[in-house]
């Protein structure tokens, strides 16, 4: 059977949901300035205009939850790169908007550049374990007034995978134009939304009104909205995991209710990225196990409500691609995948509590993700797989290597074969002198070399139109990997 794991009882899930409803009814959420306030009032919410605080009747929240589709399509350039979140498997995405990059050559931290963004996107595009690309790096070397559009252009021309805008766009008209260019028109975009938006609450119990307006506008166009809450236990949320969960779900459900009231049936994903405050250093930790427990509990609560759930299972507090990164990511992601999270973020190049990007970490994270997927496939027990006849045939002291089934089943993926990890004898490993990071760098180099052969994504016409909308010149369009940004 496939692996079965359960963290909360049905009664516990209900208790967190009921507490979240109570918070929304009695304390409410501040959504100051949002256009949705009028619609929420009309739908029965108590709105305090001066403070922008909305108190939600439980029925309104329940109605919004019922309006959320369980299946959410994140469309790729073609169906081959679609991610359909339907509960059948766990997908993976990166993390968001790192302003710092761990330089692979010098080993030092420096501001992230457009070259990092571009190379990272190329490697992510070539990484089969990675399904969805968030806007994961901030190109700090591009002037602020041009940065957003240059970044959008680069993401859309360097990956065919679904894209999620993590930071709120400065305006929406050019983004609408982008939707039309990549999909043909807005109707086709609605059927196959290539771009989604992340709408993050500010804990405790606040969401920016302008951001909510953009989320509602996108939702009306059919773009999936990733409704994100990342409370920090002990700082922006209660110290107990249960209390943090209730607050997290109040924020997620309050924001979802605003979106569903304005755009009923809009595709939304409940994004649960709780952290804890490390009281010794007053720093936020994402690599801790309490966050993992809250994350997997959230997956169960979301599925209990019929909403697809995101989990930040690959995040780590480690500062380099070392032992801490390995054990934190491995332990956390296994829990997330076993629980059936729809999509898992925090990794594919991320360290330092999702603040620092590392190109070399992408293949390492891919390997961790693949191992977790193999683990949840579990052990298939059937008369065929029990192999009683083969055991009798091979007999005592015999050898199963020569059995035909051995070769066939290994080829079919019965056993996981690592690309990064070493299984060599110690002496041979020393003689070859290749570490996990060396192996990862080989994968990165191959991906960048393949990009030169492949060329950019989208048609020439689409790229031309997109360059117009994004205000980028031909320099950027033909920028070779590894070169600095000529913008």
């Amino acid at each position, binding site marked *: 059977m496939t692996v079965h794991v*359960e963290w909360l009882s049905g009664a516990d899930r209900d208790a967190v949901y009921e507490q979240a409803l109570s918070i929304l009814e009695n304390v409410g959420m501040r959504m100051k300035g949002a256009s949705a306030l009028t619609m929420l009032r009309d739908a029965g919410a108590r709105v305090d205009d001066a403070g922008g605080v909305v108190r939600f009747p439980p029925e309104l929240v329940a109605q919004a939850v019922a309006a959320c589709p369980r299946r959410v399509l994140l469309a790729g350039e073609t169906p081959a790169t679609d991610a359909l979140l339907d509960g059948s498997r766990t997908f993976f995405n990166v993390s968001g908007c790192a302003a710092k990059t761990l330089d692979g050559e010098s080993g030092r931290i420096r501001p992230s550049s457009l070259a990092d963004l571009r190379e990272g996107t190329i490697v992510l595009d070539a990484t089969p374990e990675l399904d969805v690309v968030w806007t994961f790096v901030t190109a700090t070397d591009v002037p602020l007034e041009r940065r957003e559009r240059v970044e959008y252009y680069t993401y859309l021309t360097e990956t065919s995978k679904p894209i999620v805008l993590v930071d709120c766009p400065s305006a929406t008209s050019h983004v609408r134009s982008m939707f039309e260019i990549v999909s043909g028109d807005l109707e086709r975009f609605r059927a196959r939304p290539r771009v989604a938006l992340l709408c993050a609450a500010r804990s405790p119990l606040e969401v920016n009104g302008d951001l909510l307006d953009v989320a509602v506008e996108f939702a009306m166009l059919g773009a999936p909205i990733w409704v994100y809450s990342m409370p920090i236990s002990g700082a922006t949320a209660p110290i107990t995991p249960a209390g943090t969960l209730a607050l997290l779900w109040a924020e997620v459900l309050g924001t979802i209710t605003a979106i569903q009231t304005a755009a009923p049936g809009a595709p939304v994903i409940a994004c649960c990225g709780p952290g804890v405050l490390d009281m010794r250093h007053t720093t936020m930790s994402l690599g801790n196990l309490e966050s993992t427990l809250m994350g997997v509990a959230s997956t169960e609560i979301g599925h209990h409500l019929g909403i697809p759930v995101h989990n930040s299972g690959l995040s780590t507090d480690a500062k380099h691609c070392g032992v801490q990164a390995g054990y934190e990511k491995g332990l956390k992601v296994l829990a997330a995948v076993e629980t059936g999270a729809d999509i898992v973020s925090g990794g594919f190049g991320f360290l330092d509590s999702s603040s620092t990007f590392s190109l070399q970490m992408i293949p390492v994270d891919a390997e961790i993700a693949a191992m977790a997927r193999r683990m949840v496939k579990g052990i298939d027990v059937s008369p065929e797989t029990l192999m009683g006849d*083969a*055991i009798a045939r091979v007999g005592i002291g015999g050898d199963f*290597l020569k059995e035909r089934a051995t070769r066939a089943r290994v080829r079919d993926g019965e056993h996981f074969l690592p690309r990064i990890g070493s*299984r060599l004898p*110690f002496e041979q490993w020393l003689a070859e002198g290749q570490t996990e990071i060396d192996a990862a760098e080989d994968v990165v180099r191959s991906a960048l070399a393949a990009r030169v052969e492949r060329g950019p994504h989208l048609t020439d016409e689409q790229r031309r139109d997109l360059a117009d909308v994004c205000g980028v010149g031909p320099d950027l369009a033909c920028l070779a990997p590894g070169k600095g940004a000529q913008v």
Partner: protein
Amino acid sequence: MSSGDERGEAVKRNLHAGRNRTDGVQFRVLTDDDLADIHLGTLEVLERTGVFVEDEEAREVLAGAGATVDDKRVVRIPSHVVEQAVRTAPSRLRLAGRNAKNDIVLEAGRVGFTNFGEGVQIVDPFTGELRVPTKEDVGNTAKAVDFLPNIDVYERAVVAEDVDQRAAPLHQAEAWMTNTSKHGFMGSGNGYLSNRLLDMAGAIVGGRERLRERPIISFITCPVSPLKLVKDTCEIIMAAARGFVPVNILSMAMAGGSSPVTLAGTLVTHNAEVLAGLTLSQLTRPGSAVVYGSSTTAMDLRLASASVGSPECGLINAAVAQIARFYLLPSWVAGA
């Protein structure tokens, strides 16, 4: 974590997996039906294919209970004999430390930790050099384990290469017994050496007969996959039963090499090997303490080597723990 035992002394009982909270995490890789299928498949292998038993006395013990022995020293064990042995093996073990505050109880679902064992190389902790281990290294690993509160029992971590190899287990025991007051597991070589180790442990606790109450040592022995109990293994199992110390019967099958490529098939031959050893133990002395062990994993066919870092090893470990619970036996899984 601690509760009083029958004499009112503190004894360590670790948390129950799945009972850490009112409704703690449950983790299952096998359904009840899967467990039944693996059990029935195992009984069929033991009855139909049998196991090679190299030791004459062990064959006689098994034959005395109704097993058949052929001229190739293959013993076929009827199902009822195996199932009776599972019933007489204790479900609860108290592993004694040299210091009673380090005693630990193994029983259904309580998870403890140990280090790994039998290292034939060591990375020198001070120079980083890869070299063969010494008796001093054995002592140092015991010291480290003694110091670390999350490691419940010691396993002889490395083998000493700087001593007379004919008596190596005795040197190693001297090194760890004097450097940790926690319970220790070790491969005990053969029947003769096992008896000398019982003498040493007996000298510490006040006589061999006192080991019945204070077993400060457990033996580890490995069937040879597929389906062989070699002479040393038989001797160790019988010596442990007669000496009143636990024996960890630990198979090390490699799926695709010394066991079927499928994990389900591997669990069947693994289970057959452990249960054959357990049957020998229970027929030697009903009620002797057995730990259901595993270092079984998948073979990497590219390198023809056992990989303990693989997801398959994790799945096998989880399945072995479930199988042992199915039999109400304490378990031991390696390769963490």
